[in-house]
């Protein structure tokens, strides 16, 4: 992606300096865009946007979308897509919620509560893994196209969530669990810390492991990947498995922050996750995309979303803006690539 020979020497040196960090040109321009969003929103909401309270609340809000976008990115790197991440997050969250409300005895001491919380966490992640491996199996073994397979499983997961809860919300978790979504550690929100851990692990997985290299090669050129001896179906399977696990984790964050679990909660995140991935430089055709790019893009989107909230935009206006943004960012990507290739 870094075609350095066209750049002036100064920029060339800068890119080379940043190369070990995997910062490419796209991410640099993204930083500028995010900065612009920050400035515009600060001007439109004087005094309110640039406040500690706002940034704190954004740090609580944005890890959910960020994790979902990272899961989306992973599957898009292989040239596929995972439409079932919200369904997976929902189902995992609801299972965890059931454990915390139905199984946990009302008079449980702190020790027992912690054990049950751990049990809920493990269940949610395991549920994510099962959902992800179902996707992976359908796509890599049965060879259904990712769009249809995950469209189907999305329905099934959301439907199961609906069947389990009968459409009602499950709420009232122990305080220690709520801390996962609302607590802070030395001033840093816990969801944000969780996001950082996942992002770093994922960056290592994509950039520093054999699996990651195979994954990106598969997305860049599937035919070449087959002929260079990569076990395509195994790589695909594991990709969707990891995406499912991340979605399961998101499910926990979602219910811990809102203190309630409901089927269909967070379905507006699907469009936003794809938007963030595309905005973050992930090519829908596969191969390109970085964890850093996606993270910066989420940050930008969160600035905009919080800013629009302060301006009291309706949800419908936001739906309109996200759609326009998605189209615009893809058109700009196309124009930039087109000019570079000439």
């Amino acid at each position, binding site marked *: 992606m870094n075609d350095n020979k066209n750049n002036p020497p100064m920029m060339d040196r800068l890119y080379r300096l940043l190369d070990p960090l995997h910062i490419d040109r796209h991410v640099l321009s993204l930083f500028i865009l995010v900065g612009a969003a920050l400035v515009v929103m600060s001007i439109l909401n004087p005094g309110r946007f640039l406040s500690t309270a706002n940034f704190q609340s954004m740090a609580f809000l944005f890890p959910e979308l960020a994790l979902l976008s990272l899961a989306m990115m992973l599957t898009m790197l292989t040239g596929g897509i995972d439409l079932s991440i919200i369904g997976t997050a929902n189902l995992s969250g609801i299972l965890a919620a059931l454990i915390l409300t139905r199984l946990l005895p009302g008079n449980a001491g702190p020790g027992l509560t912690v054990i049950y919380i751990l049990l809920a966490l493990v269940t949610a992640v395991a549920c994510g893994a099962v959902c992800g491996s179902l996707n992976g199996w359908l796509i890599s073994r049965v060879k259904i196209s990712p769009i249809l397979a995950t469209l189907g499983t999305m329905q099934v997961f959301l439907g199961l969530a609906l069947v389990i809860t009968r459409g009602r919300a499950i709420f009232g978790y122990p305080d220690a669990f709520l801390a996962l979504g609302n607590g802070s550690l030395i001033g840093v929100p816990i969801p944000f810390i969780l996001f950082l851990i996942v992002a770093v692990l994922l960056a290592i997985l994509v950039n520093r492991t054999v699996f990651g290299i195979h994954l990106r090669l598969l997305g860049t050129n599937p035919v070449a990947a087959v002929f260079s001896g990569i076990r395509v179906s195994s790589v695909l399977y594991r990709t969707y498995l990891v995406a499912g696990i991340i979605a399961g984790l998101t499910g926990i964050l979602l219910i811990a922050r809102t203190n309630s679990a409901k089927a269909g909660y967070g379905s507006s995140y699907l469009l936003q996750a794809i938007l963030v991935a595309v905005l973050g430089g992930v090519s*829908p055709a596969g191969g390109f995309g970085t964890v850093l790019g996606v993270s910066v893009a989420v940050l930008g989107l969160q600035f905009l979303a919080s800013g629009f909230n302060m301006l009291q935009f309706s949800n*419908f206006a936001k739906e309109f803006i996200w759609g326009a943004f998605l189209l615009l960012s893809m058109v700009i990507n196309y124009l930039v690539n087109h000019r570079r290739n000439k």
Partner: protein
Amino acid sequence: MRKILRKHECLLLALIVVLCAAIGIKNPSFFTLVNAFDLLKSSVTLGILGLGVLIVLVSGNIDISFPAIAAFSMYVTCLLVPALGFTDHIVILFVVSATVGCLLGFLNAFFIYYFNLPALIVTLGTGSLIRGCLLAFVGTRIITNLPSSMVEFSQACLFTQALPGGETFGLAASFPIFVVAAVLVWLVLNHMLLGRGIYALGGAPEAARRVGFNIRGIQFFIYGSIGLLAGLAGIIHASNMRNANPRDFRGIELTVIAAVVVGGASITGGRGTVLGTILGVLLLVIINNSLILVGLPTEWHKVIIGSIIIASTAVTAWRARGRQLSTVPT
């Protein structure tokens, strides 16, 4: 003979017959003319949308913006036609709505063709854009005083028959529209060069380009026609519901895509027939309407529809396996 029996459509037909027999045994009221007409009426909207999705799937792409297009053109037509003082005639309503839908479809084609973008993501974007525009800028109010021609249209019946109680029933007047649309789509897909071009585009885009098909024209036709069909479906839906609700059609894309995929169309393109789509729609409508007759709670709908998508795509993928040259996933 064996070749005919092994066709996907035959399999579907057998499935429908078995399903009907099973439901009929459980609940004999299934086998009445009233129920049959009712099933046909419910399949009109889904069927018309399904024909549009079929065209897109055959071309190897997907469109998920058509529910938003249907809602938009329906709502705007119901607002505009009385406001502009057009003659209150059902044909005019259909023409206006279909035109609006067609233009919105061209918007999709514009992004997909000129910027070479994946249709899934473009239509995700335009769907959100159109729906957001409708609800944020046009209106959120449900229009209950529809143009009177729409109300008349929803009451019009063919083959009217009298029930013992004195009430009459008949086949909905919207059903012939579905039939005409199906015949037209069949003619285009099977008997026109344009249709061959759509199949070619789905089978091998690069080959279609080199052979000299007008890819731009084909793309605009594909997305224009799904928009047009969505516009028609919008008016039929509103007249059946006796109101125009801008929030309608949300989530219907999954059911429609499921119906078309069940009908044997493959999302990787190049395969799918009108007959298969009609049977797929019928199967889904029967299942949808009969879950209640059989006594299954409505919460299970989503799970069942999702399972049907997975099962039928698995069958299609499994059948395609022999034809695949390499193990490259598509």
